[in-house]
């Protein structure tokens, strides 16, 4: 499907209520099906050995034999859960940090073929936990400027790294994926609209300041923070992401929050820090009060 775009001088307004409509989160405890393919493993061995050689690093054959995850397979499962039957997607963005077992593959091109709507698809990586925030920023920009309103953010991580990189590395303790389906709300649907969305360099910690300031909102605030950040002052409630999910952690908790939101209006503030570079990323989501339908309301005490 050929997609054409023209640039915009300034971002247009998004439709009222445009935001997160639906979430999915999945753990992938076993190796991928692809890892069982010996031909693929041999290709991966060559690719990784050549990748490591200039850095004086060596492949860990035992770790390679244990397999790992394919983000293509993980995303396929997430798409099935997050995109309702009969719906389609205009834009798919994959965010990750640790490479998967297909390091040379244009996975999102494959996902475009797989996902309903044959979406425009791209990936953001090499930014630590900020990659998912940048991906969300891109989704917002393409929705406002290019009319790709129905979007899917996939944040994934896998725990297999078959070499010692020779530098400190925070690997996840398992393989996890989170999907956020974004778009204009369907009739009667409650969305989480996006407020502040920033990634800031360390000096002055503006992200942390904004997080603390979120407590000044006129609605209850739940802060969802990465394990490297202290609980922010002012938040009514705090969820701290599992350190074993360095890339997906805050999104994993967001998915849980949005799966069972309280009935009143509230704000969710995500903040995560890239420990190696000090940047703090921040995203605020506002959830309006649930609409009580007359028939339902009448039956409640």
């Amino acid at each position, binding site marked *: 499907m050929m997609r054409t775009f*023209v*640039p915009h001088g300034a971002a247009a307004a998004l439709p009222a209520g445009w935001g997160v409509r639906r979430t999915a989160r999945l753990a992938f405890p076993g190796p991928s099906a692809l890892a069982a393919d010996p031909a693929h493993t041999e290709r991966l061995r060559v690719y990784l050995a050549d990748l490591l050689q200039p850095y004086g690093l060596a492949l860990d054959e035992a770790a390679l034999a244990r397999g790992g995850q394919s983000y293509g397979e993980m995303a396929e499962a997430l798409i099935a859960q997050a995109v309702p039957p009969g719906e389609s997607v205009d834009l798919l963005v994959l965010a990750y940090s640790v490479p998967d077992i297909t390091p040379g593959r244009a996975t999102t091109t494959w996902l475009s073929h797989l996902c309903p709507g044959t979406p425009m698809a*791209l990936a953001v990586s090499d930014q630590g936990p900020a990659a998912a925030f940048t991906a969300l920023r891109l989704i917002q920009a393409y929705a406002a400027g290019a009319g790709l309103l129905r979007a899917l953010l996939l944040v994934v991580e896998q725990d297999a790294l078959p070499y010692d990189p020779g530098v400190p590395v925070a690997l996840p303790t398992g393989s996890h994926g989170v999907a956020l389906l974004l778009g204009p709300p369907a009739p009667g649907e409650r969305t989480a609209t996006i407020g502040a969305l920033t990634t800031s360099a360390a000096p002055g910690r503006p992200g942390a300041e904004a997080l603390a300031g979120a407590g000044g909102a006129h609605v209850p605030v739940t802060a969802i923070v990465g394990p490297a950040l202290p609980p922010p002052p002012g938040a009514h409630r705090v969820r701290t992401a599992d350190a074993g999910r360095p890339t997906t952690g805050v999104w994993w908790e967001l998915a849980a929050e949005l799966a069972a939101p309280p009935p009143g209006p509230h704000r969710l503030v995500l903040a995560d820090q890239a420990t190696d570079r000090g940047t703090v990323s921040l995203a605020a989501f506002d959830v309006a009060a649930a609409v009580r339908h007359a028939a339902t309301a009448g039956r409640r005490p």
Partner: protein
Amino acid sequence: MTALVGVAAWVPPGRVAIEEPAGRLGLSGMQVKIFRRYHRLGEVARDPDGELRDLLRAALERLDALRGREHLVRYVLHARTFPTVVPYPHDPVRQVCEEFGLGHAAVFAVGHHACASGLLALDAAGRLLAADGDPEGLALVLTGEKAFTAEARLVPDTSFFGEGAAACLVAAQGERDRLLAYATELRGDFDTDDPETALEFQRVYADELASAITAAVARAGLAMEDVGVILPHNVNRVAWHQVCRTLGYPRERVVLDNVATTGHVFCADSFVNYRTAQDRGLLRQGEPYVMAAAGAGRGATFSAMAFVH
């Protein structure tokens, strides 16, 4: 409207004849002969002692438009043919950015469109800047990779990769090299090991790339005769001659100068060829031109962008 503020490119002086990578990859003498005589490939660029950061550094050193504007750069996007080009979590791109006073910027990789990821990054950079609403904000698109493994040395039946890099400074608006339209088609159905599908890919290659060019030009409100020059990806001459036949576009207006001498410089081709076109005086003020690229290898992407110089 997204505009290019400056474009710089670096192709290292080292060259190896295509017989060298062909020998390492186990290609037959007949295959090499086809590459030489039919595809008109001769040698590829190599920087045998340099790393990725050396390539990127050399491109950035030539980006005069960046000097004095470093503090305005909000984003640095490394557009990649291959998603993983260094051991995780090594980050030479960020190291180079810090060397050039860009440590404050958001630095990340964008891609999964294979060799068409450079055009994707230009579009994404413009959209991020437009969404920010900061008229002074800039983004830097970096391209270029090392031919570090077999997959990064050969495009099967099509071309050999050459080493090099480019740096392109992007603004949300401007008068110089304005982006008019972008067209892209993702073909995930080509992500298979099936030999029949590989043949089908070769069969549709020229038509699909021509379609992307036509779509971008039409979306820009132009006709092909308005396009002064095409800045191609450097796969081979035959592929582009086929594209030109499909488009009815004169092949001499496609900048194929570097095909035989650099190889396919990953996502940097369009920018390397921009510099060549600039040096030859082929980019004329007010005249539209096109950048085009196809990404292949486990899926395919066909992309084109229409600009006005």
